[in-house]
């Protein structure tokens, strides 16, 4: 037994962050090898927001994500094997190959859906919150979106609605400083995006989104507020992405940050743990997870293609 073993929850957090990181890196590799096609947006460097926020949720709470959704799905409890299968267009994927990366849906773990449309998921989360409140449920909804979504009209309409109707929703803006390819400064003069929430009387916080503990604490406050009938909250998590906007970008440098140990949420978390104890276990976790991820990917790639018979099924429930 390792004397300075990680506390159970810390180990789980680290494991989850590594699972996301390793999944995304593997996806990148598979894309480069031509095993995955389509638009692939990775969240390497943004693991702390996904794990911090989803860790504050109950299993029945719902999450609606955008075009960079893998981290949120994994943090909410999706199985990576079925995620890989979906990314690779296989019949065993979560959506039977019909959705792909941007349209993942794992409602059984509360990850209701992602959308490929910037800000398109925000009203959906509001609707789930409305449903919860009308039906007298205690469930809270979360929308994850990037800083680019804040310039859309839909965002503005949604803040107004969420505030007017005091909906139990938590809006998480992962501000990685890039809207698609260009820096945020090319998209808005607003420097603190949470100012928008203040305008509508929505409580907000702007925090270091690479600090897992900070994200977790802020998310718990926001989720408690929503569950207690206190209405919506807005969390602006300042974070970084270490890849470009999408995989295969010919101008890879655009829209990404250099890998930086100071910013890397995993390195930071590990350092914060080692402050307590000189454990070597974090490396073991990484190694174990990488094996798990490799195996899941290999299995997904050997899975069959979807059955052509299913092509026109599930367009509508029935005619």
């Amino acid at each position, binding site marked *: 037994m390792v004397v300075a073993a990680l506390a159970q929850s810390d180990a789980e957090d680290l494991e989850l962050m590594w699972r996301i990181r390793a999944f995304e890196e593997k996806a990148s590799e598979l894309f480069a090898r031509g095993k995955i096609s389509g638009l692939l947006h990775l969240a390497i460097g943004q693991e702390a927001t996904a794990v911090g926020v989803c860790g504050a949720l109950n299993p029945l709470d719902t999450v609606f994500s955008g075009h960079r959704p893998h981290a949120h799905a994994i943090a909410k409890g999706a199985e990576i094997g079925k995620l890989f299968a979906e990314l690779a*267009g296989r019949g065993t994927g979560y*959506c039977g190959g*019909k959705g792909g990366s*941007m349209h993942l849906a794992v409602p059984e773990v509360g990850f209701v859906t992602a959308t490929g*449309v910037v800000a398109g998921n925000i009203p959906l989360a509001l609707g789930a919150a409305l449903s919860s409140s009308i039906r007298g449920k205690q469930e809270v909804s979360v929308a994850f979106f990037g800083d680019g979504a804040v310039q859309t009209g839909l965002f503005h309409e949604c803040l107004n609605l969420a505030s007017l109707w005091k909906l139990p929703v938590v809006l998480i803006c992962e501000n990685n400083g890039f*809207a698609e390819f260009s820096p945020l400064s090319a998209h*808005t003069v607003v420097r603190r995006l949470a100012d928008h929430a203040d305008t509508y009387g929505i409580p907000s916080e702007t925090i270091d989104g690479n600090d897992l503990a900070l994200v977790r604490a802020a998310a718990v406050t926001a989720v408690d507020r929503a569950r207690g009938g206190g209405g919506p909250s807005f969390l602006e998590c300042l974070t970084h992405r270490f890849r470009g906007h999408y995989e295969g970008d*010919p*101008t890879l440098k655009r829209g990404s940050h250099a890998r930086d140990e100071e910013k890397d949420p995993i390195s930071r978390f590990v350092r914060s743990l080692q402050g307590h104890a000189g454990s070597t276990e974090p490396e073991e976790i990484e190694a174990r997870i990488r094996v798990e991820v490799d195996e899941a990917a290999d299995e997904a790639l050997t899975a069959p293609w979807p059955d052509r018979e299913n092509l*026109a099924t599930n367009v509508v429930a029935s005619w």
Partner: protein
Amino acid sequence: MLYAEAVVEALRRSIEDDERVHLMGQYFLGLTPHRTMVGDLYQQHPDRVYFPPIAELGYVGAGIGAAIAGLRPIVDCATASFTFQAFAQILNEAANIHYMSGGQTSVPMVIHYNHGVRGGGAAQHSHSPQAMMWNTPGLEIITPSHPADLIGLVQTAVASNNPTIWVDHVRLFDTEGEVPDDIDPIPFGQASIRREGSDLTVFASSWMVCRSLEAAELLAAEGISVEVVDPRTLVPLDEEAILQSVAKTGHLLVVDECHLRCGVSSEITAIVAEHAHGDLRAPVRRLATLDVPVPFSAPMEEFVEPTVDKIVEAARSVVEGR
């Protein structure tokens, strides 16, 4: 010249020939590797470019106002699916303004998008909304399929005092075609017979022209002579060219990347059924994207879109009267 180069060339000419032309948006060449060429053009003309935020409703609408104020903006919506965000401004404002004002005010702007199945785009990035736009009077729609046509059509679009939808396709970018040094503006409403033939008329636009030409080549080997009619502009439409070709061949296959129901293929078929029913020796066949959202997975994606093989098979069935 590569089609992608022609896109840049068309933009370059527009900027250099008319100082009122400004470009709004930056994804004329989508996310393809070619897009660095647009970047180079932008560096040469930094004062003629506007990089909008992700706010299609706002910036497409701003293009309308800028056109009213005296610019000739070319606005890029990137992927066709994003035009849905801007439908209120494109279809309820731009299309109506000239009419509602009784001819007082014009909206000389061009709205560009890349449509269609592009490989892994799935349901939210693979639309071909031109059929919907077609049902809204007031928009001109160009659907080039050849680099030279593209340059000529864009010149006319920029000179036009109407809002013009410029429909492009990322799969066209890697195609090649001869482009003479001197290209005059191509008048709207003039179809191009891209290949002459006597047994069957194939109507196709945009990327589907290329696939139809490839299919025609294969069919020629079987002894089926195919005439490929490329309308080049959907609005206005050269109905005469279609009817003439059908009068000659007696058979029509419409290939279209929009969905089947109420797609471009529906209108073309209806026109022929109304005006040339007597010329037809067999039912018109429509080959369009199946009426399901475009699936993500590659084999399913290929299954829903019109492919060369499907065109060949459909062509045979029309000619054989099956």
